[in-house]
């Protein structure tokens, strides 16, 4: 880092919210209803998702729990849970945050509010139907793409309705200079449309791919969905909120660009475990791409070290900042873990164990959910023009943080132990299985805390909404008098 330049030249005029043409309040007003719809349904799905997840954890304590009912058997609930979390929560939250960022950073009013509302409606209908189908035994069998193939067109179409409005908003921006968050958001919008249509075409439209090509495509899709689409959305909000709330410029747009392009290029290779039944170059390329994501990791690290240096004290002031910092931290840990596990020697130990599950959960809950919560704590009060309850927000933060940590450590340590024990053929599988039950049970304590945290957010959100409605009604009544 010797040559590292600290040329934090003040960049082209900071965009201030009280610029003559259009105020931040007007921008927020333009996206009020579409975003409320997106966020509201996202949070409900999130809650449903973690509750489904908890049902499954219960089955490790009591395998017979809800076993009589085919709809609630472990596998189906597992698939339903991943669909609820990724499609119900993840994509809707990322769309909402993305649209808002595009409005704010481009200083353009949201385009097509009604179209977005209709898109959201159809999207939710499709996901609901999809989850019901999964519980009814119609899961597609592809990880993270479990909703039956015939839901594909509806999902794609409603996604496009929303995404196109986002792109148009970006197109009509007044502020021509782009900020890194905008690249991430735009990339995410294109990315999902592309991977989803490719995967649906190859897997569901006859003539479908044959043999393990399906697995390659499904894994590629699932990796891109989490690491790129959700990852970009989380990074977009972190890149926006940390400098914004600290009131300092981002250290370097070049480093951000480096991170962005290398992540787009290499982060999108992966998800195929070494040793998968494919010619060895396919998993090797996946592993290599994952290992190369060390580049964006370092670039983001340097960028934020310089951006935030010395400002950690202001952490406890702002809940959005807290969430964003922690999300960034968890992004590092989970990406680093992913990189390390991509090395064949480590992968031999960790593939198929709870260790990888720990990493994925950390990415989804520790990074993405935390980053989204941070963003929503900033956006929602502005949409509803009402303050959130600070106590609930605090409880939300700490419950999430502790829950994620406990769950992660439980599964991570248990998974590593499981991998090491399995390496010795003398250890019987069933004994190893029993040995891993303890950490899994510890992690379900963490899951409970996560549920608690999410419940706090849910209460806060709908509490704000209710108070706002009351206030409105009162105002109307007074006006009538």
């Amino acid at each position, binding site marked *: 880092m010797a040559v590292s330049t600290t040329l934090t030249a003040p960049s082209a005029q900071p965009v201030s919210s009280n610029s003559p043409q259009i105020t931040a309040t007007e921008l927020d007003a333009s996206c009020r209803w579409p975003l409320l719809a997106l966020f509201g349904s996202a949070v409900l799905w999130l809650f449903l998702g973690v509750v489904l997840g908890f049902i499954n954890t219960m*089955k*490790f304590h009591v*395998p017979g729990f809800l*076993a*009589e009912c*085919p709809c609630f*058997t*472990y*596998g*189906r609930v597992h698939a339903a849970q991943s669909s609820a979390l990724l499609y119900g929560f993840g994509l809707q939250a990322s769309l909402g945050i993305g649209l808002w960022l595009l409005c704010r950073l481009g200083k353009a009013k949201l385009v097509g509010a009604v179209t977005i509302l209709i898109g959201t409606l159809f999207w939710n209908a499709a996901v609901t139907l999809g989850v019901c189908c999964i519980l009814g*035994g119609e*899961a*597609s069998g*592809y*990880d993270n793409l479990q909703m039956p193939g015939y839901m594909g067109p509806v999902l794609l179409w409603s996604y496009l309705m929303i995404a196109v409005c986002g792109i148009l908003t970006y*197109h009509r921006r007044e502020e*021509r200079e*782009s900020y890194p968050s905008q690249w991430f958001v735009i*990339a995410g919008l*294109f*990315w999902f449309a*592309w*991977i989803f249509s*490719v995967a649906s075409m190859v897997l569901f439209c006859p003539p479908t*791919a*044959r*043999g*393990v*090509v399906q*697995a390659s*495509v499904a894994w*590629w899709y699932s990796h891109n969905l989490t690491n790129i689409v959700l990852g970009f959305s989380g990074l977009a909000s972190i890149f926006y909120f940390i400098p914004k709330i600290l009131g300092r410029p981002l250290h370097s*747009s*070049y480093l*951000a*660009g*480096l991170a*962005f*392009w290398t992540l787009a*290029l290499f982060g*999108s*290779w992966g998800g195929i475990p*070494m*040793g998968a*039944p494919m*010619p060895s170059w*396919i998993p090797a390329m996946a592993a290599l791409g994952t290992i190369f994501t060390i580049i964006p990791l370092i670039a983001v690290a340097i960028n934020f070290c310089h951006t935030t240096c010395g400002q950690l004290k202001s952490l406890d002031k702002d809940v959005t900042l807290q969430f964003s910092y922690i999300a960034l931290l968890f992004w590092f840990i989970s990406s680093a873990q992913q990189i390390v596990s991509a090395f*064949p020697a480590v992968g*031999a*130990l960790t*593939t*198929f*164990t709870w260790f990888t*599950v720990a990493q994925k959960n950390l990415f989804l809950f520790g990074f993405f959910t935390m980053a989204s919560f941070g963003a929503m704590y900033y956006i929602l009060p502005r949409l509803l023009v009402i303050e959130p309850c600070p106590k609930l927000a605090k409880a939300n933060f700490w419950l999430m943080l502790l829950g994620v940590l406990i769950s992660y450590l439980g599964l991570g340590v248990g998974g590593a132990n499981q991998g090491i024990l399995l390496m010795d*053929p003398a250890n*019987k*599988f*069933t004994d190893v*299985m*029993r040995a891993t039950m303890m950490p899994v049970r510890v992690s379900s304590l963490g899951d409970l805390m996560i549920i608690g945290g999410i419940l706090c957010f849910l209460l806060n959100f709908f509490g704000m909404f209710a108070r706002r409605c009351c206030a409105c009604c009162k105002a109307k009544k007074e006006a009538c008098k």
Partner: protein
Amino acid sequence: MLCLLQGEEGGLQVKYGPFLFLGLLCCMAASSLTFVLAPQMQIGGLEQTNSVADLPVMYPSQPAGVTHQGAEVYRANNCAACHTLQIRPRNLGPDLQRGLGFRYSVARDYIFDKPVMLGLQRVGPDLSNVGARMNPSTILLHLYNPRATVDHSIMPPYPFLFEKRKIGRVASPDALVLPATLPPLEKGYEIVPRKEALSLAYYLTSLRQSSYLFEAPPPQKAKPVATTDTNAPAATTNSPAK
């Protein structure tokens, strides 16, 4: 040098929408070419082939209709959430050392699978070769209540694949023989597997990747055995109907 660094991808170009779009297009193309198109071109057209050791036999054999129905039950209940169907090579995991398979799995093993459910987590053992180590009656009993065959198993039971009914004039030949460790049924009743359970058991017993192929030659040194450290004793490994 400074000029070079100035040209680093980033700030300047992405100011413009079209550049952003083009760059993204290239990235998306690169990854989908590598993981969608190239595999499709290379292994999308794999066919049956002769097994190395026994030339006249074509492998894999065309699956029977029941096998397919069984695979559908496997898919519907997403057994892949806990079980994998892939054996890793010796240097990438202990699968062969643990006797989970005869050889590592290759693309050709799956050409008739739709969908291919390789699985990503092993809460339970790999099932690529269960057909070589369990017989259908053990599998059925295990499905009905895993704790009947394995102490403290955490695999969920699948009672909805079975039917409890009054014994008719003659007892059903398929009825489960419950071990003494389970609470006995009321007198005059029996547990009979439904069609789904039977086809699932048939599917599982058909799972066996034992033919050596050109791309998966038999290991030269230690010969792996497919007896396992889990359920069935090696003596009862013969699969039925084939």
